[in-house]
């Protein structure tokens, strides 16, 4: 990953929304690089701004949202400068595609599956209907829809949830995107189907060599897919690093809290730990660290001043005052201290092999 080419360079990005005549800042000075061919997972609770953040890459902010500062460089082109619909042509959907959470709402219920895939091929690759339909069958085969030719003329309601998500992936695939944004693609699905869809995305990524940006609220899911993980809270990235950095040596109290609330790591007959309170509302200006009020480890400075990003290693950064040399040494919560053992135990209980 060291000398990899950057496909996206986000610098100091801020996004605001106008709500009830008031401006609220939802993304606050986010800086992030995305490298060619990697899978970056963005993890956070509802309302952390993770979806809004990635919507700026395709210019899909809601009508009352606007970019209030910073830049997003995509192959040297600043995406924040694009305002008109025409300027996005050739990028949105084609070079940067998105898969959304609910496959029922992202497919048109009145059109056949075959037509919806063919439509994309005709638009982006200039095929005629016949060619496009042939190609669509191949794509359905790629995403492992059984009997693709027979199911071309079916409507979305005749497909199950997992199959619909496969169709959406096929549509994204049709454009050969450079970046695929997966916005909670498996949240509405069963665990068994979820693992199959994740496996499919991973396989196709290996073949087509795109970059995946994976958005989720479930840290348990990303262990499987992510090369790097960025944890978002209150419109900021509070910690990022490789998957191993985040899972094995998490530094930010929010990441600790997210990890320790996973039921997979819970012990029977002991209450699960959870994060108190609610995510910040952006209506009032946030002073200091946004997580401070819910943070058991908050110091006085957390309520006054926003912490900078501290470097832990070449790949691992976290935004908490605990990493300041002047901060007192704190004992991590017990569940984080023996996180490795708990993970191992969970793996042993499920009879999984442990990799090197």
């Amino acid at each position: 990953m060291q000398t990899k080419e950057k496909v996206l360079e986000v610098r100091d990005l801020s996004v605001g929304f106008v709500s009830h005549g008031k401006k609220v800042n939802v993304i606050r000075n986010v800086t992030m690089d995305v490298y060619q061919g990697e899978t970056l997972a963005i993890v956070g609770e509802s309302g952390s701004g993770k979806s809004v953040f990635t919507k700026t890459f395709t210019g899909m902010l809601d009508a009352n949202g606007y970019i209030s500062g910073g830049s997003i460089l995509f192959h040297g082109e600043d995406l924040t400068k694009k305002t008109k619909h025409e300027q996005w042509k050739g990028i949105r959907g084609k070079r940067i595609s998105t898969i959304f959470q609910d496959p029922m709402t992202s497919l048109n219920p009145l059109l056949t599956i075959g037509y919806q895939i063919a439509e994309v091929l005709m638009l982006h690759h200039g095929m005629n209907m016949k060619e496009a339909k042939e190609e669509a069958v191949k794509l359905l085969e790629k995403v492992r829809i059984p009997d693709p030719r027979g199911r071309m003329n079916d409507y979305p309601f005749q497909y199950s949830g997992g199959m619909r998500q496969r169709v959406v992936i096929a549509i994204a695939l049709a454009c050969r995107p450079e970046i695929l944004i997966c916005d909670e693609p498996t949240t509405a699905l069963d665990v068994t189907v979820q693992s199959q869809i994740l496996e499919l995305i991973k396989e196709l990524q290996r073949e087509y060599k795109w970059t995946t940006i994976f958005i989720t609220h479930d840290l348990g899911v990303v262990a499987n897919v992510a090369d790097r993980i960025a944890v978002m809270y209150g419109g900021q990235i509070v910690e990022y690093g490789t998957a191993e950095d985040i899972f094995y040596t998490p530094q930010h109290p929010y990441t600790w809290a997210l990890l320790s609330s996973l039921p997979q790591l819970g012990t029977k007959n002991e209450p699960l730990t959870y994060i108190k309170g609610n995510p910040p509302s952006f209506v009032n200006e946030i002073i200091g660290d946004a997580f401070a009020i819910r943070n058991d480890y908050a110091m006085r400075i957390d309520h006054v001043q926003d912490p900078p990003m501290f470097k832990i290693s070449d790949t691992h950064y976290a935004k908490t005052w605990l990493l300041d040399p002047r901060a007192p040494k704190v004992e991590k919560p017990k569940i984080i201290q023996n996180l490795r053992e708990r993970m191992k135990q969970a793996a042993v209980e499920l009879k999984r092999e442990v990799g090197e």
Partner: protein
Amino acid sequence: MKNLFKSIQKAVIGDHSHEKAGLLDVIPTIENGYDPIVSFKNVQIGYKRGNVERVIIQGLNLDIMRGEIFGLVGESGSGKTTVGRSLIRVTNVSKGEILYNGVRISGKISRTLSREVKKKIQMIFQDPSASLNDRANVDYIVSEGLRAFHLYEDETDRLEKVEEMMRRVGLRPEHLKRYPHEFSGGQRQRIGIARSMIIKPELIVADEPISALDVSIRAQVLNLIKEFQKESSLTVLFIAHDLSVVKYISDRIGVIYNGKIVELASAERLFEVPLHPYTKSLLSAVPIPDPRVEKVKKVVVYHPQMHQYTHDDEPQLYEVEPGHFVRANSAELAAYKEIVRQGGNK
């Protein structure tokens, strides 16, 4: 078993004694500590379209013990929700019967009995935003059960009970005047729990109560359900698709596939010695928050054709060890018994 015994003792001596005995009240007959609160006896449930019935649940035999949390796991379309709905009499049973404390509550029953069923069995739904009335404030939503069953003496008593319950689920009494849309998903789910718990039911059917919630909030709701179960000897039928969640909360787990229970065991045993290939497939899909484990994970896909069942050797639910049932034909049963004898498969 000890736990079960305790809870029954409490039920007999405890707060039930002063109440007027209803049709569904417990007549304690404890034989070998076996005390089911609900029994499904050869239950078949189907949905009719015209004259054709599509069978969803077939030949279901299941006992849910008093005071336990029973986890029912399966994928969408497996019929797990239908089982829960048949308990609260939303879905009709076409064959067999459901017994509650030994009294039949399926099919045609008297109005008094139907009312009692509603009082004893309550439900917690998956989607907290769809299951709460948008136009009613929290006070109304939570006290609806109290009103329906006249469980309060006067207005002050009612308010006291509602406020007590609000505190119990971690909400503030000030919240009573607010409307559901003013709450976050986790808070709404807690309102849903308060609404069900306030009339002190004996059995809760929790249908995927945490699937629609953020992971950070799931823990709160799970803790809450567990607390209620411990304190008020509540029985819970916990329906979910994710084995990792069910394992944490359940005493016993039933795995359902295509309308049939394929494996049933204590939570520990099901994880120690999973026998049925479908259970193994579910276990293999559980995400573990450890990149080194996850990156070498192999998901086992279950194909029902793999069984090669023939007509003269139909599969049945067999008990392979005490309390551990698995659906198998005679050849499979022998193999499963061998696995159990060797102390689990590696």
